[in-house]
């Protein structure tokens, strides 16, 4: 087996640095395997989150050679192993320890988004009739595994720290999933504009580029939401109705 060099960030909220480890690498391995190997043999207290090892749970987010990725889905064969590979925690969130960050802000943000409110059932037995096409349209958004890599990469959060004014791409996708849900009757446009800060997004598409679920976050979720906000807010007829207290 060949060996390769990995530089893993070790530390906590007080600070830390990259530490170098040699690891045995074999066919088919992913970065998470290397981290586990180092943990089992050299650094038993090295903190890392993971669950499914198959890109389904969104636990193992980190920055590999500076790029936000899932460790379990990053094959070593896609990396240049002649150079040390760096593995660092996500930068947009407070550090806890090593590769683990405090992502609790995301859970608080989600709570602020108005929940699903279905229309009355279509059939007397309390069920709905939905077209498969309408299911598929929102499936793209519902695939989200909440890895928060898009939050990590978005400059509004990462560099400008607007965590209390902008919910970030993940939750714009979430809002889009609710807004476009075939049964939903809630209206979230006002919040999107104000509290959720959709206006902060300037469509750089960095979020789309890192999404492991290949959700077209910007084109399919954020831009339509922005349009909705514009339609509702700057459409004179709608403005008039809002003035009268009407909704949606």
């Amino acid at each position: 087996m060949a060996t390769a060099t990995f530089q893993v960030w070790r530390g906590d909220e007080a600070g830390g640095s990259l530490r170098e480890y040699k690891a045995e690498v074999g066919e088919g391995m992913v970065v998470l395997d290397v981290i586990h190997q180092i943990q089992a043999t050299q650094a038993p207290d090295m903190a890392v989150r993971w669950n499914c090892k198959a890109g389904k749970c969104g636990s193992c987010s980190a920055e590999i050679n500076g790029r936000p990725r899932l460790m379990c889905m990053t094959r070593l064969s896609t990396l240049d192993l002649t150079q040390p590979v760096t593995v660092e925690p996500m930068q947009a969130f407070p550090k806890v320890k090593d590769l683990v960050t405090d992502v609790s802000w995301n859970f608080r943000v989600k709570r602020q988004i108005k929940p699903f409110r279905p229309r009355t059932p279509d059939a007397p037995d309390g069920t709905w009739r939905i077209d498969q096409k309408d299911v598929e349209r929102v499936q793209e958004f519902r695939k989200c595994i909440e890895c928060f890599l898009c939050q990590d990469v978005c400059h509004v959060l990462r560099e400008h720290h607007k965590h209390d004014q902008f919910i970030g791409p993940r939750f714009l996708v979430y809002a889009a999933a609710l807004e476009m849900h075939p049964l939903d009757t809630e209206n979230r446009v006002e919040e999107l504009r104000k509290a959720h800060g959709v206006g902060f997004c300037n469509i750089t598409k960095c979020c789309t580029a890192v999404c492991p679920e290949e959700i077209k976050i910007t084109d399919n979720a954020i831009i339509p939401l922005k349009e909705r906000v514009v339609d509702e807010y700057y459409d004179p007829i709608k403005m008039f109705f809002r003035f009268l207290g009407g909704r949606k």
Partner: protein
Amino acid sequence: MSDYQSFECDVLVIGAGGAGLRAAIEASAGGVRVICLSKSLLGKAHTVMAEGGVAAAMANVDERDSWKVHFADTMRGGQYVNNPRMAELHARESPARVLELEKWGALFDRTKDGRILQRNFGGHAYPRLAHVGDRTGLEMIRTLQDHGVHQGIDFHMETTVVTLLKDGERVCGALAYDRDRGYFKLYRANAVVLATGGIGRSFQVTSNSWEGTGDGHALAYHAGADLLDMEFVQFHPTGMVWPPSVRGILVTEGVRGEGGVLRNNQGRRFMFDDIPELYRNQTADNEEEGWRYTQGDKSARRPPELLTRDHVARCINREVKAGRGSPHGGVYLDIAWIKQKLPNAAEHIRKKLPSMYHQFKHLADLDITKEPMEVGPTTHYMMGGVRVDADTQMSSVPGLFAAGEVAAGLHGANRLGGNSLSDLIVFGKRAGEYAARFAREHGAAKLDAAKVDAAAKAALAPFERGPAHNPFTLQHELQEMMQRLVGIVRQQEEMEQAIEELQHMKRRVQQVGCAGHRQYNPAWHTCLDLEHMLTVSEAIARAAAERKESRGAHFREDYPEKSKEWGRYNLVVRKAADGSMAVERVPVIEPSAELKQVIEENR
């Protein structure tokens, strides 16, 4: 000594997978204060990984389906050692529970007339699994999680329970630690629901995540509760086998439901070679009929690839052992072949099985629309667990409830695919409802401070012992040993050897330790997890050594036949007065006359 952060609630739910979330929602809807704990972040529990679907006899696709057929299928799959009342409640209630998910925002794939679509799965007579592509678990956990947070449930994430606390006979709370920060959290509760999931990590090849260390099984055992059916561990027939780092990761049964076939290295559909008597009437006898079945032809019978998991897993094992396996020790699972039947096969496969497509493409450089996969058995699901009352889900310890994979009874000797997700919502709801009722009726229980201190001290012992003995090494040895000696094919001597090795390991676990501080320290976590894993492994080995027959998932080379006599018993594992582990036979629960008739009608 240690200081604690203290919390009080009426109902403490341990676990935030499907079962825990559903229990928490129900308890909180019942107007009591609920705290729900999980080792991982919210939404990451095992349930998120479920792929194929949730079983509910809604009869949307085949009007012949009903709760009766679902009940009979579940009993047949479980080889009639299931708790028939649980199987009945499950079959009757799961359609309503699935529709409730839709009311809370879940979106399932649809039939042409806009109702919930259902797919075929092994052991189910009719298409019965509501699903959304192959990511049904994600849809379910996200729906429950999002519904739950708006219901005022208090979620404490990344919090691991180390022991249950009792007030006399009754359970009164739990001691836990915060994984991120390392401090202790003390919970006082009037009722506790265990929803901790499975035990797969005790084996080397498994579809389970690090969380599947059987904590709930062990916590309940040490609290004095009965465990039931511990010999029945499900080995799913199709896990990935290559590359090594993904060995064990699940390949959903949905692949076979959509027409995927199993072949050995001679290209033979070996599943046609061995069709068990119990299923002969329902199984296709030629390839053409099997294909028609997967395409919804109601006059066709199911292909043998969709026989129950225990059987398919053993057939694969046999092919591999006989030298007819694939290069990396599995067999071939081929869905690409359907291009001979369907014009747009590649697109169809990507749409029906998107995450399988993704998984193989990214992890194995393999395009499943073009090439066959290599698959082999993987430790997947625990049928055994806490023995509960069918209606209330209360264990033999007052105030201690269990639901989901940690509870036993519904599945008997073998679980049918799709019957777990439905189990979670049916019995999660019941556990939540009755735990809330128990809490209201019984009021506050008292914590014993001395016991709490002792438990905290024990949990910190790995730091005092230091890092000389590495917990990961012992963990790997345990997994290797269980796989080798108590795995898919069992025999007396090997299991006795396993029991003996477990006694050594129980001593060694008292030596493993860790360095550093308590903040997010995996070595410390693993030291504590190991104790649960050993308890559970011993219960499995002892029960398996005791049951001298082959039934469902429990297959013995030395007793390869099913025995009528053993069909009368379930095995209970409990802690004896002297602290040793006792195994006891209890009679299986007889179905009521009405249920017996349902079974007969569906033979």
